[in-house]
């Protein structure tokens, strides 16, 4: 049983602005949690501690923002948001790896810039945020572009 999955999902929901149900519906949660685990490696347990405190906070946005964006995890979380929205992981700066004490990833490691799977491209959130669809997938039908989107 993957005990951290609900926490990962809740955290992703908080940082992406999409509900847990919407994220679940992409089919990407397991893929991304697995990737996230590989990227954080030995720091994963620390991160989940941080995530638990963050999702447990009241809805005070400023407090959450301050805790999140000033944390050592922000560069990685920022790339995680990018992953959800664009379907690609962007490699973090070497300075971040030095700061947290992790090795800089090689060109084929999980932490390198890459699209983890075709479905990550297909289900990326950016286009649907704009009431559109990822290019080359899920066409909306002849002439639909001349009408207001139906969501």
């Amino acid at each position, binding site marked *: 049983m993957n005990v951290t999955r609900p926490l990962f999902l809740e955290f992703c929901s908080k940082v*992406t602005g999409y509900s847990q149900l919407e994220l679940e519906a992409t089919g990407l949660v397991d893929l991304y949690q697995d990737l996230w685990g590989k990227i954080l490696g030995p720091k994963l347990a620390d991160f989940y501690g941080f995530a638990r405190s963050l999702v447990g906070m009241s809805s005070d946005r400023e407090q959450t923002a301050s805790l999140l964006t000033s944390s050592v995890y922000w560069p990685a979380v920022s790339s995680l948001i990018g992953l959800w929205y*664009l379907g690609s992981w962007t490699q973090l700066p070497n300075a971040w790896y030095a700061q947290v004490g992790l090795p800089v990833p090689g060109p084929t490691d999980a932490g390198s810039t890459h699209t983890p799977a075709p479905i990550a491209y297909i289900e990326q959130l*950016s286009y649907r945020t704009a009431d559109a669809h990822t*290019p080359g*997938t899920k066409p909306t039908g*002849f002439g639909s572009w001349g009408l207001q*989107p139906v969501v």
Partner: protein
Amino acid sequence: MAELSQRIFDVVIVGGGVAGAMAAIKLSRAGKSVLVLEAGTDAVLSPNNYADALSTFHAMGSMRSTPNGPYPINHDALSPNDSQQDPYFVQIGKKRFLSDYLRMLGGSTLHWQGTTLRMLPNDFRMQSTYGQAVDWPISYDDLEPYYCEAEHTIGVSANVEDQAFFGVWFEKGYVYPMEKMPQSLSDQYFMKTLTGVSVDLYGGSYPLKVISLATARNSIPNPNFNHGRGYVAVGAVGYPESGMRCQGNSSCSPMCPVQAKFNAIKTLIAAKAAGDVEIRTQCVASRLLINVDSGRIDGVEYKRYSNPGDTAYVTEVARGAVAVLAANAIENCVLMLASGVKDESDQLGRNLMDHPYISLQGLSPEPVFPFRGPDVTSGVESLRDGKFREKHAAFRASIGNWGWVGEPTATVAQLLSAKQFGTAFRQQLRDKLTRMVKLGVFLEQLPDPNNRVTIDRQHIGALGNFLPILNYNYADYSLEGGLAAIEKVWPVIVEKAAIDDRTDFSAVPPGFQAVECKGKKFNVMGPGHIVGTHRMGHNKGDSVVDSHLRSWTHPNLYVVGAGSMVTIGTSNPTLTLAALSLKAAEHIARDLT
């Protein structure tokens, strides 16, 4: 195979793209035997392989950078921009030539936008009307029947009333095969806000007219087409029931998943079905065998490789009564130069043209919901002709349906660097993406003898074939047209359509290069409109081919494609090159009987 090599065809066509496909179908229907030699693979010929390319496109994700991206790299017939490690063009000019093409069966129609505009009558007579460039040996009137034929063969969606302007005429009662494509919300917004708005260019006043574009993607067949016979849309290769209508996949480039957009493979398949056509892929034409006495082409030597990337090859010769070069403007030149084709005009390889492309972008006051539908469905078409062409380039401006260049990646990155997250991130991204509008300006470029394709033994590529050496630059005539678009037209649109102007030339996006004109810097890209390297003309002293696209010096050699065009005008060149190819094929068929 040996037996096939011995066969003498009526016509050998070099190149399995749109120019070759048009010639093949016309000659096939005329009962001529045809061999098509294609340098690249037939990697997307079968439905399964096409699906593989689509998977590659998805797997490359948002990181794909070029239209050639999803198609397999083939080092034996490399395409420009395929590979940074193995560049294909040798660029020696002041500016880089930025357009690409795809060397594969179907050619660049696999990733083209599908815009199929006719040229304007004045585009054919730039010298006599505006004192610029040179006149063609043929007029719009001469080409009109072939435009109709090309629109039928390709399957074009448009309506005559939108396309008949600046002297473009149609026969009474003519209708396009399919109705015009539905126009996007962006188009509708600009049509509403720019009605009655004019701009001043070089002392004249010009209206900003937004009209639908003629495009090669399947729309609703027009029952009145072809004198009431109607039209049946042509679906995907191998899956004819798929792609009967554009579904709005929003990925015309790099590929239409359902092939609702025309590609040349459709025509090649039809050509095979219509008669005696053989297609040989992975055969790179390397030399024309020229008879020293008669000047006739005795054969086309080609190098056949078994698998892409192989260094081993066999050299064979294809024989036909007529040879047709249809390998694209740059490849045709390389082959002719490598073969020692006689050219008394000294025009072979010269006058390379393209449409320098500028992206102007902003935010509309209300959402227009881009990133849906074909990339362009309308344009500002009323600045494509006028007295200002005495002074600077004409241009057309496509209304982009896919937001700004490099989006949505750029805005996501920007919001993240501003430390945005959660619902605020989502809302800000939505607010911006849904209001993105773009004008893509295509600038006319005049023929310049210094913009040139050459070859040199110092630059040899795979299979021992020559690499194209390109010397390229932009003249002030084009760049001043760009300045007119940026400084005289765009500000009027920004004001009248209440656009929040976000055009920024300070950074050069991938695929673009910086240019400067009269102290103003802006960025241009190449849209793949490769024109003019073996121009047609009035006599052997001024051109490489005659008005039938036949070589002046080698009587059984025809050189088709956009390289034969004398000027580029402002129309995307595919429809014109298709019409010219059909015209040449008609002449060849007549010649052979």
